[in-house]
């Protein structure tokens, strides 16, 4: 091949060398850039192959979706026996809530998104009107779920269960624990010795003991601390414990946020003559909360996952329903199917929450990139 000659400065732009761009280049750079890297890729591919092959076979191809019992399932095919779920899907979602009244749960659940929308998405149109609805929503939800007013049938707490119970516990805990957590964080940073000591003791105690012991306290001991004869629902007691527990964690997250604010901010606020509450409202909290969003959402996700612990004190959350199903001789031994189904539910909701937090973090990030 003969080299073409060009005048100085007239050399044309050459295409990049083959193997550095396009699909081929990408594969080479990201999967086979060195011997060890290629080895890793090959191991990953083999691993993935077996994993996907096994999962698809067991989950779908060889699975049985409807049968009368485990034995009937095994007669049809040897994959997963999803009949244990499909036969009881109503229980998994609503617990033992009366079948005729389940529309009330559906409506509450759907309207929950409308109530949360203005809080979660600040740019939503007509935000102000929606906010009125958000304020009104807790009463609306309470009346609709509990009944007893406006001709709605009253439903006992003990009938609550399934995913509905998880969502009720999670949402109540999350909504109540944020304000308490903020107060505790401020208390911990306070100049007042008494307030600070109290906050520290509360936070350290809650963070130091396992949640399950707190739930035992709620279920078996809380009545001793109340005037004789008081008796309120186990559901409320559990929500109180969840609130205290996650408020302590949120307080620590927010304290981190408060401590991360540059000192100049406080000095500037002092120079403007702001009092403590003005400083907190306009300077400290907006910045501290923004920094602590990832931590707060992580705490919420933790709280939401921890709602499964109520099964230990006998409430029928999805795990409780699942265990009840497994105790039935017809479905004995199908634990993997049952628990994977519940796990899928938790994965979807928790993953959505963490994605939302990433989105919010990016949106509020005012740093120039």
């Amino acid at each position, binding site marked *: 091949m003969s080299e073409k000659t060009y005048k100085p400065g007239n050399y044309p732009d050459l295409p990049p060398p083959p193997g550095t761009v396009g699909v081929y280049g990408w594969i080479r750079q*990201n*999967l086979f850039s060195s011997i060890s890297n290629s080895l890793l890729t090959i191991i990953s591919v083999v691993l993935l192959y077996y994993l996907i092959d096994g999962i698809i076979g067991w989950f779908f191809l060889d699975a049985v979706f409807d049968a009368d019992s485990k034995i009937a399932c095994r007669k049809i095919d040897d994959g997963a026996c999803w009949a244990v779920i499909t036969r009881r899907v109503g229980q998994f979602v609503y617990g033992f809530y009366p079948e005729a009244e389940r529309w009330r749960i559906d409506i509450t659940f759907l309207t929950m998104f409308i109530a949360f929308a203005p809080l979660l998405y600040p740019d939503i149109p007509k935000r102000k009107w929606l906010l009125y609805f958000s304020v009104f929503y807790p009463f609306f939800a309470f009346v609709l779920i509990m009944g007893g007013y406006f001709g709605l049938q009253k439903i006992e707490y003990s009938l609550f269960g399934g995913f509905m119970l998880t969502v009720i516990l999670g949402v109540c805990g999350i909504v109540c624990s944020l304000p308490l957590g903020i107060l505790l964080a401020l208390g911990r940073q306070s100049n007042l010795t008494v307030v600070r000591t109290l906050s520290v003791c509360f936070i350290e105690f809650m963070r*130091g003991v396992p949640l399950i012991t707190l739930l*035992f306290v709620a279920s078996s001991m809380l009545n001793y601390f109340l*005037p*004789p004869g008081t008796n309120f629902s186990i559901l409320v007691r559990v929500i109180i414990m969840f609130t205290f527990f996650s408020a302590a964690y949120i307080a620590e997250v927010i304290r981190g946020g408060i401590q991360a604010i540059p000192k100049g901010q406080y000095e500037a606020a002092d120079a403007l003559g702001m009092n403590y509450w003005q400083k907190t409202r306009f300077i400290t909290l907006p910045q501290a909360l923004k920094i602590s969003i990832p931590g707060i959402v992580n705490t919420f996700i933790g709280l939401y996952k921890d709602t499964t612990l109520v099964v230990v004190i006998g409430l029928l959350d999805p795990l409780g329903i699942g265990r009840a199903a497994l105790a039935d001789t017809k479905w004995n031994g199908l*634990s*993997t199917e049952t628990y994977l189904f519940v796990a899928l539910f938790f994965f979807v909701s928790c993953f959505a929450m963490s994605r939302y937090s990433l989105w919010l973090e990016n949106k509020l990030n005012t740093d120039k990139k």
Partner: protein
Amino acid sequence: MTFFSNIWRNEKSREIIVQIIVLFFLGWFISWLVMNVNANFEALGKDISFEFLFIPAGYDINQYLIDYDSRDSHLRAGIVGLLNTGLVAFFGIILATVLGIALGIIRLSKNWLASKIAYWYVEFTRNVPILLHILLWHGIIINTLPHPRKAISLGDITFLSNRGFYIPKPLAESGIELVYLFLVVAIIFSILFAKFCKRKQDLTGIQYPVFWINFSVICFLPLIAFFISGMPVSLEIPALKGFNFRGGMHMSPELAALTFALGIYTAAFIAEIVRAGILAIDKGQREAAESIGLKPSKVMNLVILPQARRVIIPPLTSQYLNLTKNSSLAIAIGYMDLVATLGGISLNQTGREMETMLIVMLIYLSVSLSISALMNWYNSKVKLVGR
């Protein structure tokens, strides 16, 4: 009224007044609680006493590190439970650390596929409640592993079955002392050698492969002693007798499920901590290390990791604490840890909710507080000191 308004306007006196009010309400609240407890206990004919700790427990525990039978006291049952908590936490922490660090590094690898696999592992694992992990693993071990008669055997000495894992138990015979002695000598040598090399490196810059030399010394010296003294260890191999295995070391399905679940769950969090720790190191550090010609492995070991360690260790410790606290969920599958013994069966048998829960909580609390005190000390020690 000017007197009162002056007091209220003075910052110092206002602080004192507010604190007095808070204290007053606190005292009132506590006395209210105590009064309620008194009234309730009187109505039920109960009192608060810790004597129940010394009466026979009367229940069996299937896994124990110190001798225990049902005639022993509740106190001893509680200690057995506490040791079981320690046991599962120990295994879980080892598994979680190894898996977590490996995943964290794979997550940062340039290999797109491997890093995506690690990413999805982390997402799937940490977005599912730990209790679900425990039940899932327990179910898998109980329901899918074969009966002891058809146990999966590895070389006919290790057996996996739905009654748990059985591995051979090493029994020391006479002559083992020499092996121990050599092991101690090897460890002392390694410590001294590491110090020597560190000083040498500080003075001259010459590096020795300290890790590999020490590693082989610690491995081979006892091994040589082992052969010299005529292999003074015999294995007690588990054997099938009746419906189950006898002999050997036994890991119950509950312990195995709990270890796997806690290890795998916590590994996801540790992976994220390791990743964040390595990413937190300024890019310039790596570039500077590369520009003075260090090999990639040296860049990692001498520049990145020592700095990342400072960021990683505090959250890592808090994950270990979480793991230990999460092990209390053992009660859901019947593993006899502290909560299941003292806070579970002892509570139900004696009806002393107040006392048992108080002890259980105090134990967990003291462990957490002492570890976090240790961490505060560590943090203040490794904190970057600005000039």
